[in-house]
């Protein structure tokens, strides 16, 4: 029993830290709210969807920036998609970087775009690992018979 309480407390702290450090914002809370009996794995589903989407988009972006003549319009479109996705799940930092990425696309600033891409990838890998950790912890609790309060 103590172990579960311990785990639960850890989960709460960890989640709080994610919010505190700005990785996640209120939108993520909204998602968690939407998870109910009829939709038990809503958050995981959405987040997995996000990971797939983001992987795809980041690949596209890397490819597009690797071209000799860069198509900034396409680039902007991809970044826009990523921005939308990240804001939908509440990945605040990624969302922020996307905003500045869009600016550099508009300015057609190759240097800036490359830097932004680097940053997005970095943020994405961070948030991905954090969220995976979060889900793992939730799984642990559920496996131990506890409940994850929202």
């Amino acid at each position, binding site marked *: 029993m103590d172990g579960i309480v311990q785990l639960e407390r850890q989960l709460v702290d960890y989640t709080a830290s994610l*919010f505190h450090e700005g990785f996640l*914002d*209120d*939108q993520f*809370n*909204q*998602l968690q*709210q*939407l998870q*109910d009996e*009829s*939709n038990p794995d*809503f958050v995981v*589903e*959405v987040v997995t*969807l*996000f990971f797939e*989407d983001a992987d795809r988009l980041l690949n596209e972006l890397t490819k597009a920036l690797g071209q000799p003549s860069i198509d900034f319009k396409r680039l902007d479109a991809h970044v*826009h*998609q990523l921005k*939308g*996705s*990240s*804001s*939908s*799940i509440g990945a*605040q930092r990624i969302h922020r970087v996307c905003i500045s990425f869009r600016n550099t696309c508009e300015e057609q600033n190759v240097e800036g775009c490359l830097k932004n891409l680097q940053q997005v990838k970095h943020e994405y890998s961070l948030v991905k690992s954090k969220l995976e950790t979060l889900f793992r912890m939730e799984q642990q609790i559920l496996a131990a018979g506890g409940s994850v309060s929202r």
Partner: protein
Amino acid sequence: MESCNCIDPQVPADDLLMKYQYISDFFIALAYFSIPLELIYFVKKSAVFPYRWVLVQFGAFIVLCGATHLINLWTFRIHSRTVAVVMTTAKVLTAVVSCATALMLVHIIPDLLSVKTRELFLKNKAAELDREMGLIRTQEETGRHVRMLTHEIRSTLDRHTILKTTLVELGRTLALEECALWMPTRTGLELQLSYTLRQQNPVGYTVPIHLPVINQVFSSNRAVKISPNCPVARLRPYAGKYMPGAVVAVRVPLLHLSNFQIYDWPEVSTRSYALMVLMLPSDSARQWHVHELELVEVVADQVAVALSHAAILEESMRARDQLIEQNVALDLARREAETAIRARNDFLAVMNHEMRTPMHAVIALSSLLQETDLTAEQRLMVETILKSSNLLATLINDVLDLSRLEDGSLQLEAATFNLHSLFREVLNLIKPVASVKKLSLTSHVASDLPMYAIGDEKRLMQTILNVVGNAVKFSKEGCISITAFVAKPESFRDARIPDFLPVPSDNHFYLRVQVKDSGSGINPQDIPKLFTKFAQNQSLTRNPAGSGLGLAICRRFVNLMEGHIWVESEGIGKGCTVTFIVKLGIPDRSNEFKLPFVPKVPGNHGSTNFAGLKVLVMDDNGVSRTVTKGLLMHLGCDVTTASSSEECLRVVSLEHEVVFMDVCTGLDGYELAVRIHEKFTKHQDRPLIVALTGNTKKVTKENCMRVGMDGLILKPVSVDKMRGVLSELLERRVLFESV
């Protein structure tokens, strides 16, 4: 034979005498015969002689006389009767003709004499004409010179060239020794030698303007002969040996130029003249002729005209250059202003977003917290946090508002609200803060204050809060009192508000609120500065937390509400009183109880059930589509999704009550709305079209309305928000969230 009655022959012995008589008679006859021949010959030669028949007569007379004398020759001897008859006939004829001639001559000789007179007369006339011809020729030549001179002068618009050319041409035409131009100086009291013909750089001789000779010249518009010894004519060093040539001076009017400011010209008073002096060569005995003087006068006039033209041109060129410069400067200023405005708008837009994001986190988490299990005390705290953060969110909105206030694009809302509860809420909000500072807060709301009023509740609350908040902020101790009552018309004629003349009417009343504090007060001199935005009272430097915007915004709101706000204070340490009057509408009795629908339904008490509500979600972003779908499903809706406009058009049907579409991706959403309209144009109950967007630009809202959308909501959407949105949509069929 009978002897005739002729003269008895003389003594035949006098033969000599007779011989002489004989010879003389012969010669006389000869002469008598030859004269007419000569006459006839010359008459024949000359065609003009008018009196031919007189000559004929004369000729006849002479011939007959000759004949008589000739026949006389025979009468000296014994002659026959025939001769006598012939002689008689001849004599008779002669007598007749000579008498006739004599008579005729009486008529003719006066005629002949008059011919002579006429001839004399004609000769005189001819001489006169000759003289006149000579005059005309001279004049014509003068005219030619003037034309040429004028042409030279007028062919340039440069002042120096004009004057120089004048002098040169005059010098040439009139063969002058020296020609000079004296211009009045700036002071108008002297004439300065400005141009000469022979000397290249005239040294600045000056001559006082009130010399008699100069006055004489200036007083007439003719060229005046002046003495070569007067100061204006003494241009060369006096060599002494020669006899100076005649000098003439003429005035050149400098036309009145008071409308122009010509900088390097001498200042001109009402009517001023320059003086042109012309000198004939000194060793010739030439004198000034009339036509030369006339030439000089005409030239002087022409010069005046040409100079004024040059002046006008100079001035207009200068004015044009100035205008061009000004244009460039204005253009630059305009562009700078535009850049500044754009920069400010960009800044506001970004800050707006950046500020909203953490606000949303706070609001959302607080509202979530509210829904969990809390003790009563905790609940109270959480509610206060929520209210404060809502206020803060409103403040952020108002920073945006302020920029719109400046543009004049802010419009107040007008809705019915509960005035009394507004004051209660203000009190509730401020009481905690006041009690922390150990200030006592009293409020007195007049009993005749209407329960409900029509106006912009949010902004009125903001104004009151700001004023009260200031009172609390700047008071260290004491009490704060708030009074509110209906302003009576008599109180309007207040000396403190001279420009404010409100007109009470049946549908409106004026609310007067007064907030008095016993705090640090304000120096009366600083009161006007209070309403300047971003300017904080210097004496209160210990409170840097305020942005200084508050009172400026309040004043704008109060003005928009057709009211007036003012501050009174007796000085530092004596507290201050802020009063404002605003115009509010009086709601009709009929809709007094019809309160506006508040779209944000707080907490979990929304019992609206959306079970089975068919909605369609269109979003090309997979993740946000899933999220929105989850959200709606959580609320119980039956959700269909579409990932593109085409799919949406295919799938949409009358069964769907609402279509949520994401319009972040450019104009696709708008077109889709139009197409959906077209699809269901004949149906009353077509699905409601609502746009979901994170874009807070006003133009987005306008575009949505333009394409016929029924609603617009801003992302991010919380569960509660969506619940409220759906309720309102279903009830009112329209919901445009204010951006």
